[in-house]
């Protein structure tokens, strides 16, 4: 997991499995970025090959926190199965799931 700045977003690049083991690390990273004053975040989940309800819960938590600070959260979710989990949770209605980082940064 690493982060960089792009446009006026802080981009967190996440890889591996976002489950009960992997999701807490993402939560710590998100809380760390927010504590640094980054309230406009992109979570790039391109390298995530598995997500479960714990991972989805961390993403919901991230959205809640940045919204409280008038920030924004964008998601890059190109992988079909990961995208499907968001859709099954009906979360594609509150998140736009972008195919690429470029699209997420441009908001399209």
């Amino acid at each position: 997991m690493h982060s960089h700045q792009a446009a006026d977003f802080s981009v967190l690049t996440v890889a591996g499995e976002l489950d009960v083991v992997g999701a807490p690390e993402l939560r710590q990273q998100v809380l760390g970025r927010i504590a640094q004053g980054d309230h406009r975040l992109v979570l790039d989940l391109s390298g995530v090959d598995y997500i479960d309800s714990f991972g989805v819960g961390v993403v919901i938590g991230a959205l809640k926190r940045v919204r409280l600070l008038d920030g924004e959260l964008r998601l890059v979710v190109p992988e079909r199965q990961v995208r499907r989990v968001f859709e099954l949770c009906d979360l594609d209605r509150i998140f736009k799931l972008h195919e690429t980082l470029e699209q997420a940064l441009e908001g399209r």
Partner: protein
Amino acid sequence: MTERPLPMTFSVEIPARADYVSFVRVVVAAAALDWSGFPADRVEDLKLAVSEATTNAINAHHRVGRTDGIHLRCTASADGIEVTVSDRGSGFHPADRQTLPDPEDPARLMHESGLGLDLIEALTDEFELTSDREGTDVRMVVYSDQRRRS
């Protein structure tokens, strides 16, 4: 791929530790991939559903301080693959299952957990939760191609 006579049943017991959940996913996926009658596009569904149930079971043991293992029983039959995940936690009343607000309701963001059972229900063809003070059994079935067509 070896064609074994059906039904094919096996059981595993795992330590009630989060780092064993990925092992369960591998085992269940291997069982599904090993059987040619199982629809390839449902392997990920079965993996995720069983993984959610196993995570819940591990958490149930942690809540009551149990150190014994979680039991999984898997049966492949002509109907599909059935997996039951059993814990010896303090039980769960199905009526206590929370109803999540609509996704567009701002209150929805207050629910970072509790999605697991909804996901299992969405991913499986049969889902049954049996629970009392002695523990919880979660039974899940994903149908075979043959059963889906019938």
